[in-house]
């Protein structure tokens, strides 16, 4: 029993070999990269921007900070952090997927933001930074795609400076039954259909819906952060718990 648990993992509702998940996730994001931003706005009715604002307000990012926007994709958070840290700080947009990084780089360049941003391809499970080197890490809508979430959390803890903090923005569990019914209908019927119409790719959006349901709930994730070493961990629910923002510190 234990054997099989270690050798397989979830990919949406499917179970796949552990070593396969990363490349299957990669396929999903290669295929959605170009249409990612427009789909984000459509799927969430633009609310993802408000969720991200909240994450930025809680990030404590200031002038001179070094910030890692992990699984940063097309760089929405990076764009804001780049301004907040100013010329004396830097922001690293890290993602496992070079298609997403490329879309992000082009977008940020068009916004005129370049000087303090670096683009680095990386896997959240093994972050390519020295110990105690980063002030703030954010991972927005990325953790649920990571195969070994515990390893990723440990890796984030390692590279944070003492006093640094991690913010996890991720879909979560809503406690309202009505909301959860609407949300289910939305994500398993409307979402893949929109994905098909706009990005001609219903499978990827079905994966997104399924991966959201497989993600640990608020309390579980908080516990996982504590196991990885984070202190003063807390979370706040947004939009009735459809999304939660977790925060933890390293001391």
């Amino acid at each position, binding site marked *: 029993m234990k054997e099989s648990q270690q050798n397989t993992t979830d990919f949406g509702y499917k179970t796949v070999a552990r070593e396969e998940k990363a490349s299957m996730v990669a396929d999903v994001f290669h295929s959605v990269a170009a249409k990612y931003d427009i789909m984000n706005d459509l799927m969430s009715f633009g609310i993802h921007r408000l969720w991200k*604002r909240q994450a930025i307000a*809680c990030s404590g990012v200031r002038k001179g900070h070094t910030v890692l926007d992990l699984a940063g994709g097309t760089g929405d958070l990076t764009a804001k952090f780049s301004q907040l840290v100013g010329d004396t700080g830097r922001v690293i947009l890290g993602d496992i997927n070079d298609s997403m990084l490329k879309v992000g780089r082009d977008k940020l360049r068009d916004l005129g933001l370049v000087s303090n941003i670096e683009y680095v391809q990386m896997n959240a499970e093994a972050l390519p930074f020295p110990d105690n080197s980063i002030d703030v890490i954010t991972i927005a809508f990325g953790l649920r795609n990571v195969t070994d979430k515990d390893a990723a959390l440990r890796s984030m803890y390692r590279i944070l400076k003492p006093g640094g903090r991690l913010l996890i923005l991720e879909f979560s569990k809503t406690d309202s039954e009505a909301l959860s019914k609407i949300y289910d209908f939305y994500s398993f019927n409307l979402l893949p259909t929109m994905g098909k119409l706009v990005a001609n790719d219903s499978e990827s959006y079905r994966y997104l819906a399924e991966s959201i349901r497989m993600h640990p709930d608020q309390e579980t994730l908080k516990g996982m952060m504590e196991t990885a070493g984070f202190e003063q961990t807390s979370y706040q629910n947004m939009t009735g718990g459809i999304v939660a923002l977790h925060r933890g510190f390293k001391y």
Partner: protein
Amino acid sequence: MINTLLTATAEHILNTILSLEPSVQASLSKVQHQVLAVEVRDWQQTIAVTFTGHSFMVFNNYQEHIDCHISASIDTLSQLKDPSQLTRLIRQGELDLEGNLHLAQAYSQIFSELDIDWAEHLSKYVGDGPAQLLVQQLRQAKQRTKQLDGVLKTTTAGLFQDELKVAIHPLEMAQFKAHTRELKQHAAVLEQRINQLLAR
């Protein structure tokens, strides 16, 4: 969430102002990256604002380091459009200020100097003509309502006189008939072709 939406809107307005009044950038250069928190007592809300040198960012429930915190009622805050009032309001105890006074003054200063040409601004979204018209119309809204009745009457009268009196010239009629005949022939040829194709 509603508050976040409102602060997002406030941020959008500030950044619009910034793009319309580039002088704002210079006025705030000394207080770049500093965070000003404004507590609106009547709403029991605190809004934090910072200028990054690039744009404004506005947050609600901001719990991080703040360089200057002011707290007052909305009435008192609106008096800050005149920067000379700031110290008076503090002295009279109508406004609490903690932290860097210069930061509050810098923001107060930019709002006092603002003189935005809204028609110019709107024209970016809807084009020059409509923008001018819109601003004019807003100004003249009351007057227009009165005039509208009269305008409608003359317009309809004009319509009937100019448009409906037009008769068709005999030459035009002949040309029209010729066109119709030609069209009929084309249609017949086309019909034949289609029938052939279908028969295959």
